């Protein structure tokens, strides 16, 4: 890695000040997306600002019809948290499917969604669970937050503070894991709300997206096994062709629907 400056923030205001003090800066928490990007020199920041020392950023609490999870909450914590498990069991299960135990002990929710990797898990949860993403600059609905591959609506220097997942009546996350990287080859999050269904797909396309055809079919009580996404809009790489990914999406959708809790 290239050399950089490093500062430890103890408040959100302090972190913003440090970010604005010149050069290219980046925030770091668990580092499990940023450090690999820096090792390969995809990212070469001049300054890193550690936000893990900011009090309260890892808090988990239920407030009415939303479950709020702090940005620096680690995947292992979310997977094992009693509040998460009782409010949205499918979200705890998703956290348990990220990476491996050591990765889950370090990686954070905020890091996952701000990186918006095309195969990351949490972006699918945010979309399917109609999440509100709270930042130092305001609030976003998940539908307006994930803009494209590795791209979000965040402005420079804006910090995600917490994410409010709307409690569904039932939800399930079905993931076909790449056996080496454990990233999603394809994963589908299905959530049923009193006012309709939401279905989010990750791993299949350049960025996470909602499968509106599946949402409509589920809302109408129609079978989903005849649904097929257009392969021309899906990823094709050494791991899977677009046609195979389209098929996997249909299979993972059925699996999620069968596992709704």
């Amino acid at each position, binding site marked *: 890695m290239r050399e950089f400056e490093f500062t430890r923030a103890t408040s959100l205001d302090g972190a913003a000040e440090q970010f604005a003090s010149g050069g290219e800066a980046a925030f770091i928490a668990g580092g499990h997306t940023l450090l*690999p990007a820096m090792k390969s020199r995809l990212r070469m920041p001049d300054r*890193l600002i550690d936000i893990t020392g900011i009090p309260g950023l890892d808090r988990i609490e239920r407030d009415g019809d939303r479950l709020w999870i702090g940005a620096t909450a680690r995947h292992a914590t979310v997977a094992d948290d009693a509040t998460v498990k009782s409010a949205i069991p499918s979200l705890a299960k998703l956290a348990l499917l990220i990476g491996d135990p050591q990765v889950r002990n370090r990686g954070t929710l905020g890091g996952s969604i701000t990186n918006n990797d095309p195969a990351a898990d949490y972006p699918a949860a945010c979309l399917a669970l109609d999440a509100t993403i709270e930042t130092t600059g305001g609030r976003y609905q998940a539908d307006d937050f994930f803009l494209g591959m590795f791209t979000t609506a965040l402005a420079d220097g804006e910090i995600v503070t917490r994410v409010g997942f709307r409690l569904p009546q039932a939800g399930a996350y079905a993931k076909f894991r790449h056996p080496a990287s454990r990233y999603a080859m394809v994963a589908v999050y299905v959530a049923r709300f009193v006012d309709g269904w939401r279905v989010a797909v990750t791993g299949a396309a350049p960025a996470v997206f909602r499968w509106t055809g599946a949402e409509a079919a589920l809302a109408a009580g129609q079978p989903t096994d005849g649904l097929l996404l257009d392969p021309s809009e899906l990823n094709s790489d050494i791991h899977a062709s677009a046609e195979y990914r389209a098929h996997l999406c249909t299979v993972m959708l059925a699996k999620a629907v069968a596992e709704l809790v």
Partner: protein
Amino acid sequence: MQTRLTLNGTARELDIAPATLLVDLLRDDLALTGTHVGCDTSQCGACNVLIDGVAVKSCTVLAVQLDGAEITTIEGLASDGALHPMQAAFKEHHGLQCGFCTPGMVIAGLDIARRHGGSASRETIAHELEGNLCRCTGYQNIVSAIEAGSKAMQDA
């Protein structure tokens, strides 16, 4: 950057360059070469250490982020010349062949014991070793060692 941490039970105050990965601090600066670098891409688990009792991949942690933390490496497990129960179980059950992955496997085993006590099934242990690679293909005995080591820790 000044960083205070506790390493294998000893308080240290170190001046660390920000770009230093924990594994490089351990191996290159502190000569604790029991922690290995297998892949450097947070996949193989050879670099596992305990930070505040929890297993992490030290190739993907900045040392300067560990101010105030307690770090335990494979060198810190034995006490007074006696192997830690998890290490003793690896020896007893032939849980190592070439030995390269072993320090990371032992640390992963300690994390499994932390989460499940001595009650993890072989299936659970095998599943939770998904972040550790053994290129000698010796997983059966590694699972046996962690099973026995976890039980020994519970009984100790």
